[in-house]
């Protein structure tokens, strides 16, 4: 699984961090998404898919 984030689209809702905190974080200065792991392990795959699904700005893409 490969994760791609688009910072320009991100609105800092924090949904991805709530869904998968080992894979996503937010920048201190403006809350914009920080990708911690672009190739997350299989056991986090469901959480990461969930994170992409709840992102209100559609800023997370998953390439399986």
């Amino acid at each position, binding site marked *: 699984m490969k994760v791609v984030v688009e910072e320009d689209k991100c609105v800092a809702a924090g949904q991805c*961090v*709530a869904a998968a905190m080992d894979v996503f974080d937010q920048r201190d200065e403006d809350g914009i998404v920080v990708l911690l792991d672009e190739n997350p392990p299989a056991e986090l795959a469901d959480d990461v898919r*969930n994170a992409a699904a709840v992102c209100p700005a559609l800023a997370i893409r998953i390439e399986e």
Partner: protein
Amino acid sequence: MSEAETELAAPDAELFDYPGARDRTCPFAPPAGLRALNETAPVSRGRLWDGSTPWLVTGHAAQRVILSDPRVSSNDKQAGFPHPNQAMAENSPHHPLTIFNADGADHTRIRRMMTAPFTRNRMEKLRPEIQRFTDELIDTMLAGPKPADLVEALALPLPSLMICALLGVPYEDHEFFQEHASLATRSDKTAEQDRAAMEALGGYLAGLLQKRMEEPSDDVISDFAGRIKAGEVTLPEAVMLCMILLIAGHETSASMITLGTALLLQNPEQLALLRETDDPKAVAGAVEEILRYLTIPALGQRRIAAEDIEIEGVTIKAGEGIVVALPAGNWDPAAFPEPEKFDITREARHHHAFAWGIHQCLGQQLARIELQVVYGTLYRRVPTLQLAVGFDELRFRRDDALAYGIHELPVTW
């Protein structure tokens, strides 16, 4: 009027008058007429308070499409914008740009000035403080006379204390700003009352911003004071943005605490499930279901089409108003099977109680943690909590209030 126009105009009599009237025997459910639209048309014409007939988007999937479409504008200064009430129709065109009325790059610039204090991890760090405030407020309620009003005892003070701490607004002034914040969510306010409340709150916040320009502290007002000095934002803009944070942090979370408690007390088997769980994920799941079920922002999201948009077999023309009816989307059986069933174990995270798209609620992570703490604490600490009046005596807010809710919740134990 030509015959063709008469024919087109005739079905207007059948249009749903948004937001509609709830059935008083079932005050948690969206109006039946609104729910019926989920069965017939996910996008259709509705009618508002002023007789205008914008598009009503009721289907959950259609709401996601509309709220993610950059051709859909939040510019409430444009003629044809579907304002929630008369006061806002008169006053909104004179407001500076905010996260509510800006689009595209302007919106991004403004929102990014406001997001830093509300990140998920910063909110998570507030959890112990939210727990402490919650425990203290419950202690005080239990030490006081019965019955107590849960609005005054817990629901309003908790979010108010938290937003004051984050913003750097002295909580001692809470009666002043709660009164004005409360007026802001009323639909029967006059334009003059609305302006007077905004001037009072604005003057107060401008004073705080000026103070923090001299003596900065570690809070949101100081952050905006710094941005004024750096020329990133003007004083009137900063006042408006701080006012949005102060107002939005109050009535919405308070309503979720009181209405959520009333809902749980009416559903004792669900309340027992919530009370008996030790799993924070189960409590978090319950919060999402209660958010979905109640959908406090019952007036929905207001937009205007900047270009022609084809959706669900209709064409929304440029310049036409769009009302995204959030309660309908959250009760759409295509997204939530048996939506009338209140089930705290349901997977409900895809609800639209915080809206969707780039304008999704900025304070949602704070609201979630406040609600997780309250729902995870109140019913365990007060297992005998019950209504002190009959359910049919509860006074619910008007259907056209910006934040649905309950005026008071008399409880005993």
